């Protein structure tokens, strides 16, 4: 049985999801979406904690995991990962917009 999973996971801030979806899909990433803004503090913390549990399981099994953070929950995620013995995630390098359309045709 074939399984085409990319073994690449991006943890993505809710505010960045729509912007990055095409790019991440093209790169073969699966996504763990961080919670939206505006949640009660305890709910948000519990949500980040369960996201960290997902991340820890992927890291334990050798998956590549990166973070696309907007500053809202990144620190909390790092703390929750630390409690699970997982180092902070490398930042996902957001691709700059293509400049090819700015190149005049010759």
């Amino acid at each position, binding site marked *: 049985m074939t399984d085409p999973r990319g073994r690449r996971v991006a943890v993505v801030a809710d505010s960045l999801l729509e912007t990055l979806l095409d790019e991440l899909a093209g790169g073969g990433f699966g996504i763990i979406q961080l919670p*939206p803004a505006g949640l009660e503090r305890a709910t948000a913390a519990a949500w980040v904690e369960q996201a960290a549990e997902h991340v820890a399981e992927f890291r*334990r099994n050798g998956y590549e995991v990166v973070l696309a953070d907007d500053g809202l929950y990144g620190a909390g995620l790092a703390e929750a990962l630390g409690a699970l013995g997982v180092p902070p995630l490398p930042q996902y390098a957001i691709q700059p917009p293509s400049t090819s359309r700015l190149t005049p045709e010759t």
Partner: protein
Amino acid sequence: MSKRVAFIAHCLLNQNAKVEGGAKRPGMWEPVIDLLRERGYTIRQMPCPELAFGGARRFWGVREQFDTPLYRRHCRRLARLVAAVIEQHASAGDDVVLIGVDSSPTMGVDFTPSAPHWSGRPDIGEDDSMLVRGDGIFVEELKAELAERGLPVPRSTGIRHWFADYDPDEELRRLEALLE
């Protein structure tokens, strides 16, 4: 202004959460994601109870194997988080839908796999489980949590890409009806 919001099973946005052998795509199940974006839905990914509980190397399973008090407590813990976000959207007057996975003992909405005889050594050979009508364990716990909060159950359906007679056109029609 009210929004349209889709709560989706974790693996629809992260195929890595599937049991080994269960992924259909490298990253996400685009037929659903693309449709939601076309229709202007905000995506809310739910946690994967099976990944968190059984791990990335878990065996395939059926409803009877997962239906334990401990697994239900685990699902309820996650369902409380999802329900809290649904409540936030409901309070704002948003239109909320739920999309599960109908081949899952956990995330099934209309169907869930059953095999009362599965147990012991994981060498079942041919998969002789049956898809039966009913919710997965997490979906049941989510409905119970929503009921406790006095919230209605969102309109819902399940993705059936692992059904033997999977019909993408039927699924598209069913999704379009849900998202209208």
